[in-house]
């Protein structure tokens, strides 16, 4: 079912265009990387602050609030370019273990957001220090895993 969807997806014009156009794939890949730098930078800066490792002059709430817009902008670009990159080789991804690990970790990022939204990210009062540390630590771990499993996709046979 999912596989036949991937097969259909792989035959679409967009998929063929990205796959066969000499420049399209690296350009989308380049934008994906730029957005990772932006989005990743915002995530790391928030995590570092939540862990109490830096930026101590800014409050957690203030920093997260101010970075939110750019985190979203970077995140949307990462997702859109990521979907385009996936579109050009869905069958390969369907069979790639690293891809499914990456998707699982991304789903866990959603769970992480659900768990910590009220107490840390969306909190208007200063969040509990140890809870913020836990959120920052898990976020670092999840994103490092996502980068690694994402990179491994290209090395899957």
């Amino acid at each position, binding site marked *: 079912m999912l596989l036949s969807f991937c097969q259909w997806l792989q035959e679409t014009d967009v998929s063929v265009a990205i796959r066969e156009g000499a420049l399209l*794939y*690296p350009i989308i*890949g*380049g934008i994906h*990387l*730029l957005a*990772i*730098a*932006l989005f*990743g*930078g*915002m*995530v*790391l*800066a928030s995590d*570092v602050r939540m862990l109490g490792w*830096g*930026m*101590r*002059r*800014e409050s957690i709430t*203030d920093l997260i609030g*101010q*970075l939110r*817009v*750019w985190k979203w902008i970077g995140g949307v670009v990462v997702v859109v370019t990521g979907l385009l990159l996936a579109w050009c080789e869905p069958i390969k991804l369907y069979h790639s273990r690293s891809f499914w690990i990456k998707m699982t970790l991304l789903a866990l990022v959603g769970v992480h957001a659900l768990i910590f939204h009220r107490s840390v990210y969306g909190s208007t009062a200063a969040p509990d220090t140890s809870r913020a540390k836990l959120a920052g630590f898990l976020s670092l771990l999840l*994103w*490092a895993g996502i*980068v*690694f499993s*994402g*990179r*491994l996709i*290209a*090395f899957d046979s």
Partner: protein
Amino acid sequence: MTILGIMQWLEASPAANAMNGPEWAFPLVESLHFIGFAFLIGTIAIVDLRLLGLGMRRQPAAQLESDLRPWTWAGLAIMLITGPLMFSADATRYYVNPSFRIKITCLAIAIVYNFTLHHMAARSEKPGAAGILAACVSLLLWSSVLGAGRMIAFV
């Protein structure tokens, strides 16, 4: 020793052997390289967005720059360890790769620029128009480094 000789020596070095050994070695180092640039370029981008007046407006750019500085340095340190490791794995091929050469040129300019002119602009009392210019140049330079870096695998 000729440059080619240096490249061949690098490719036979223990670092290169480790990188070309287990199949997870290269992607692992490459992932660290990605996390490194998220630190390096991400923290610089935050200062740039502030200089452009597009974000973090409750703090002056100087404060952000000094608070983020250790993490910019940490990112740079990660890059300067993981980059040469990946290079050693296939030195002769990288050395002649035009995208690689463009990347390294942009990188050298970007690093010098970041710790001189960009630093001065971010630390000045009222960055103003000079700050906007400094931020644009900075974003352009680092984007070129990333873009040319991505192209290495395709030329």
